[in-house]
């Protein structure tokens, strides 16, 4: 008997518990409306390290240790560490895993990595393979900029649809039992390509994947958008959010309603902070979910949340060679019982 329901959704037989989370962010994110929900806000984007790559690794490692400390656990007690980031060869995760010394499985789903990690953690725990799984994701504005776009000091004007990569990292500890919100469903998305080529409009490139994953999730579980008191996509930004709302109606006939928000739009004060379409990067969904949403779930201000983390599966190479930008989105249903 499998735990699959419908076409792409998996239902754990005993919902795994997120017993602890942690979120750390850079200074710019700390000034945003969710700054007060971060466990640690760095005062400097270098986090005291020699390079921005070093800073990102410091942030992820710090998020992981903070997450473990909050649950009163130490690395040897954790069975598996699942982690990913945006850098080539996911070096942030690899080097963090080296320091944590937990058996490590590297994952990559671009900015959907946070939900991918959480989904896999839930499956490993519910499948009985692991007792404690730590899932983490990170991104850093300066490391992502140089890899995907230009040197950080290059003076280039951003288009209105361009997004700002979030600096920070989030981690979650998943266990078979304990206190905290549980993971009730996992919907694994398909790679979707609706022909967008502009790497400065990733929101529009990822919106179809987000909409299709949500529609499939609603169809598979029988829970419509109204079931959730919060639906968040990862990093579609202002324009991607708009497109996802339209696509959910045109492709599935679902009205996502007022409770649908986007992590990339929640992190920054889009009026005062110059981020154009909003935040992006693995850290967008990671720090919003593991910082803000988790704390609200514990206080029961949210009870049913659907996290739909979105990723753009392109690289500068594929883009410069004229390739489309395919998107992916994974949904994880998190409920407080």
């Amino acid at each position, binding site marked *: 008997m499998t735990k699959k329901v419908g076409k792409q959704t998996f239902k754990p037989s005993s919902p795994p518990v997120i017993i602890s989370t942690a979120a750390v962010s850079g200074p710019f994110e700390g000034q945003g409306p969710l700054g007060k929900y971060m466990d640690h806000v760095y005062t400097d984007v270098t986090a005291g390290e020699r390079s921005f790559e070093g800073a990102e690794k410091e942030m992820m490692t710090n998020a992981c240790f903070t997450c473990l400390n909050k649950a009163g656990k130490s690395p040897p007690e954790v069975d598996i560490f699942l982690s990913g980031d945006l850098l080539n060869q996911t070096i942030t995760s690899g080097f963090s895993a080296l320091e944590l010394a937990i058996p490590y499985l590297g994952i990559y789903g671009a900015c959907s990595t946070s939900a991918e990690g959480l989904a896999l953690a839930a499956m490993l725990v519910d499948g009985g393979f692991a007792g404690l799984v730590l899932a983490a994701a990170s991104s850093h504005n300066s490391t992502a900029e140089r890899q995907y776009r230009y040197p950080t000091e290059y003076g280039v*004007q951003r288009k209105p649809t361009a997004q700002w990569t979030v600096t920070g990292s989030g981690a979650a500890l998943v266990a078979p039992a304990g206190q905290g919100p549980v993971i009730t469903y996992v919907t694994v998305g398909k790679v979707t390509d609706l*022909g967008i080529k502009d790497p400065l409009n990733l929101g529009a490139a990822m919106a179809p994947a987000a909409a299709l994953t949500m529609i499939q999730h609603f169809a598979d579980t029988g829970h419509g958008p109204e079931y959730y008191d919060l639906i968040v996509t990862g990093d579609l930004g202002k324009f991607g959010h708009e*497109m996802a709302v339209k696509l959910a109606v045109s492709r599935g006939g679902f009205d996502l309603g007022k409770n649908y928000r986007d992590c990339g739009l929640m992190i920054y004060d889009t009026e005062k902070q110059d981020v154009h379409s909003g935040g992006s990067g693995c850290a967008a969904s990671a720090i919003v979910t593991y910082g803000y949403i988790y704390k609200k779930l514990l206080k029961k201000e949210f009870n049913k949340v659907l996290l739909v983390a979105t990723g753009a599966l392109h690289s500068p190479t594929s883009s410069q060679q004229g390739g*489309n930008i395919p998107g992916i989105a994974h949904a994880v249903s998190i409920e407080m019982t």
Partner: protein
Amino acid sequence: MPRDPKKKPITVDQKRYSEIVRDLAPKPLYLKNALLAFVTGGLVCMIGQFFTDLYRITLNISPKEAGNPAVATMIFIGALLTGLGIFDKLARYAGAGLAVPVTGFANSVVSSALEFKREGLIFGVGGKMFLLAGSVITFGVVTAFFIGLIYALFIL
């Protein structure tokens, strides 16, 4: 299901979505951006003119000769502003106004050298310095080569 190895043509779905995105995507503020580029670009050129005149008068040289130290000075200013982390903030507003003058050339060289400093002097600073400016030099030289060739062969 057998695999279809043929390259898939653009589907109707992709075409329609791309069109919707193109129509609905927020547009840049064309007029404001162009005006800002005009004013900042104009000011940069006036500063360049000031240095040209300065060198022309103090060194008592022709305007053409004074152009060289003036360009070098502008490159120095662009480099310094880049090093101080100010250039990219100004360029957010000025756009092409700072990018098109020689200050932008300086910025592209300096920002690349600076960015890859951590990879060392050889692979980083030395190797990556012309990451962005390289194409300007390449296309400039290729153009000049063929124009020079035409002159040498047919006109002179």
